[in-house]
């Protein structure tokens, strides 16, 4: 099961598919200050990603996957840092 929904932290593992976006979003709606552990997540469906972004979720453990670590995790962090206003458009970053 790619989703393990705890009381405050969701653990995402493997490939999170579009089907998992719904339970994830439901969990995000009822969880205050949600956190997400992406360590073993290899891919995140766009629907799940935008749910995480909308919930301004905090990343508790960075993903091991190179693509997610390079591009998705910073994005989530940027959103989490700007809770109720629009996120900065151009906090640009260089490729490593």
């Amino acid at each position: 099961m790619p989703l393990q929904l705890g009381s405050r932290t969701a653990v995402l593992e493997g490939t999170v598919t579009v089907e998992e976006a719904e339970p994830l979003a439901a969990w995000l709606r009822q969880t205050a200050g949600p956190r997400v552990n992406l360590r073993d997540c290899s891919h995140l469906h766009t629907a799940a990603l935008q749910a995480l972004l909308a919930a301004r979720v905090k990343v508790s453990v960075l993903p091991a996957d190179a693509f997610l670590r390079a591009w998705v995790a910073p994005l989530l962090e940027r959103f989490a840092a700007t809770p109720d206003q629009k996120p900065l458009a151009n906090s640009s970053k260089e490729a490593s």
Partner: protein
Amino acid sequence: MTNPLLAQFVAEAADLLAEVDEGLLRLERDPADVDLVNAVFRAAHTFKGSSGLFDLPELTRLTHAAEDLLDAVRSGALPLDAEMVDGLLAAFDAVRAWIPVIEATGSAPASAAATGEAIARRLRTALGDDAGGSSPVTVTVAATPVAPTVLAPWVLDLGEETLRGLLPWLEATGASIRALDYRPDDGCFFRGEDPLHLVRQVPALEVLEVRAPDDLPAVTEFDEYESVLRFTALTRAAMQEVQYVFRYVPNQVEVVEVTAAALARLLDGGDEAEAPTEAEAPEEHRVLVGLLAAQRRVLAAGVPTPASVTAAVRVALRAASALGLSVTSPAEGAGPEAVLAWVDALVAAAGSPVVPAQRTAPVDEQDAGAERSADGPVGEPATEDATAGSRILKIEQSKVDRLLDLVGELVVAKNSLPFVAAAAEEEGHRVLARRIKDEYAVVSRVSEELQQAVMDVRMLPVSTAFARAPRLVRDLSRKLGKRVRLVQEGEETAADKDVIEMLAEPLVHLVRNSLDHGIEPPEERVAAGKPEEATLLLRAVPDGDAVLVEVADDGRGIDVERVRRKAYERGIVEESALESMSDAQIAELIFAPGFSTADQVSDVSGRGVGMDAVRSAIERLGGTVTTDSRPGQGLTIRLRLPLTMAVSRVLLITAGGQRFGVPIDDVVETVRTPWSSVTRVAGREVLVLRDEIVPLAPLAGLLDLPAADRGDEVSVLVVRTATGPLGVVVDRFHQNTDVILKPLDGLLAGTPGYCGTALLGDGLVLLVLDVKELNNRAAAAR
């Protein structure tokens, strides 16, 4: 290799490459065959498609170039010529060379980019030169309507800071980078699309910016199934690669080339005002396009001198790079026509508002380009092939081998039943003994069928071993300037995988040899009254337990006199011996180690290892090699190979109180004769058998075993050896039996004198003798 997909790709690559190779060779002969062109194109396309699943841009780029060329051939725009086939073969050879590295490391070798680029350019040259009569110019025509000179404002979304950081690099290298803007529509999730997954597949991603709308609602009133994100990215991957990734959503994505000039303009312009749109192209742009058009007029008017051509090219190049087009200069020493076409293409690419291109060439090229990008990257329905192939199971060889081992053990266990029956009978249980024997017959039949079934799984057609020949013949005949037609017969004849695999290498030697030494140059053939085109025949026919493979040419045959002289010069045979040798025996000398008739070592053959290597390889397989030379008419080399190596029939013998096995293939006959008929010649015991002298050697002596007492009769096992028959004196003969021969391993590995061990039904481990080694020992004892 951890990625199972990649493992599968590597496994399939070999098949696809073989398919492409074979198709190309057939195509060269019959360029009009539409089905063939389609088949090759499909294989190349599948290859490119699969390579796109992995981060192997070099591979994708090269196969893409090959695919484009094939596509032009398919559409009839280009006639296929030998040069193009050379280029295509080179491309797939390069790919073949990369595959092992990819298999080991997951990425292409470091040199791949350079090699691939060179070959791809070669392919593109062929494409450009002939397609529309245009010159080798690589003007990137973006599929999107955005002119490369004026970048769309969304490029700025990538972050001005990032772009500014990129600018010096672009300026320094003169390279360009691709920017893409991907706006998935609201309902894309419902069509099974995953935008993030697509973006992930973009090779060589430099920067990725994911943007959510400013009014991204809080999670409570958020619809997770309405796609709201937008992706902007920079990548070093080629335009086609990027377009390939987004081939299913072309209308949601926009890709542009970003060059230093255009980027600088965007950044500077962006500071002051909105980026200019295409409609109001800056004055500078118009001037530059005008400049290009002027060069065109210079070239088109009258007869240009070389100097004026060079000058025009220089000006055009500068103008084009200022326009932000990525340009390669035309080939050195290209004629005015080619240069004119090149400038035309530039003018067309610049989107000249001043002088419409009058020649049809650039229009054609653009059309071709559009067509290519339209149907090239779109996935062919490869699914058909996939379903057709699903009836075939690909199994690791080790699994089949394990099955074979188990069958072998079953056979051994089964063979113990007669012993049990005998024991039962001895103890007076006759009925029981009978029943055991009946059961034995049943088990025996089933296990034999089982064994046959497993052996069938391991059977491969000889065509697998022949597969390399067409390419070899083509390359060599071109290199040697000979004309050779290759004919294959009986390719469907099957033999064990091990045999087929070990046959491939000797066949290559034989084909090389035939082309190099056997087949004469065309003039010589015509002079000899033969057709100019030589015929090389590869034929396989089943022959009982064996397969006969023939390599026959209609060349000059073995030049006995020359072989005689060379054999003497190389000190292979002494002069006195040569005198007494028959022509057939002399011809056999081509298999002697170190023999070569070539005066010079060419890269084709003549190193004097070929034929020797052929014979030892075939003998290692348990086969034989014979020649049939018809001087002036041709040479046939016949290989006789066992169908399988796994099960061998051996004759059981006893010597020095121990049982041994001798491969039945080596046995000529068994003789029991009184000692009185053994005579002595030169102090050696010999037996005269049907007017032939057979030297005798006691097996016990050869193996350092205690000799048994001599009875009245002597049992002689006559075996076939390279130096004629040898009579091996043994104590007694037993029956012959099928065994699964296992090579000696562990501490015993490499022990000379034995070719392996086998387990007998009564549990005895049988040592199977190596007749060749026995003969060596007998010769040494003389």
